[in-house]
């Protein structure tokens, strides 16, 4: 049996499925009896997708132009 502190420590690895088998079972047992940690888990999922969609996708045109010019000069 683990407490909330240990569950919080294992949370992301549990989500990523990189947690060891024994810890996974302990985590799942904890989640059956702790609503707060279930909330933690849902929030970690949100945070993970928040990070992925927060990745900047704006390309500065002047930087691209200068770098494209550098590419054309390579090997010429």
């Amino acid at each position, binding site marked *: 049996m683990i407490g909330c*502190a240990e569950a*919080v*420590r294992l949370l*992301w*690895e549990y989500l*990523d499925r*990189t947690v060891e088998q024994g810890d996974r079972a302990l985590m799942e047992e904890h989640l059956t009896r702790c609503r*707060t940690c279930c*909330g*933690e888990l849902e*929030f*970690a999922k*949100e*945070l*993970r997708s*928040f*990070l*992925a969609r*927060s*990745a*900047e*996708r704006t*390309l*500065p045109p002047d*930087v*691209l132009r*200068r*770098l*494209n010019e*550098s*590419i*054309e000069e*390579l*090997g*010429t």
Partner: protein
Amino acid sequence: MSIAGGEKATETPADAAEAFRALARAQLPRLVLMARRLVGSDAEDAVQECLLKAFQRHAQLKDPDAGPAWLASILVNCCHDVGRRRARRPVEVDLEGLERFSLFRKIAYEDPFPYSDSLHLDFLEAFGPEDVREVVARLPELYRVPLVLVHMEGYLAKEVARMLDVPLGTVLSRLHRGRKLFEKQMWEYADEAGLLRGAP
């Protein structure tokens, strides 16, 4: 470069250079975005350096399908070098109590938006892209790189291990600490930047 299986006899240096340029052109947007996430305003220098280094070594690339990952790997190292040369003083981060820090609980206890019925989501929505970039930039490079590569670039931890030439366990451990630090820095940044004052 463009022929797999070592059949390079008919490829002239000019062909090889053009094949490299074609790869670089196609990958440039991805490289620029990745460098901006890793080193912010130093991105252009890092990509410039990456292109030069990659061109010098392009004969080493035997499998064209590996080209994008090969370029990304060189870029990660160039970002490291550029960051080190700029020698900016890293923001001091407090590792004390990091393992037990929970952003979820912190938001619940502090209740920054008392009239909200979706407190945690409202907290995340208070962050714009610039705010996220600032929080990521505050992380020490050791933790920022795996966090960005896995959670923003979509690489697997084992691919990051290959890129950084470190064991998988090292990447997982840095990733763990990086995510915790990110959560902690999100709260501190939100407090400093006044994001907690605007109740929805």
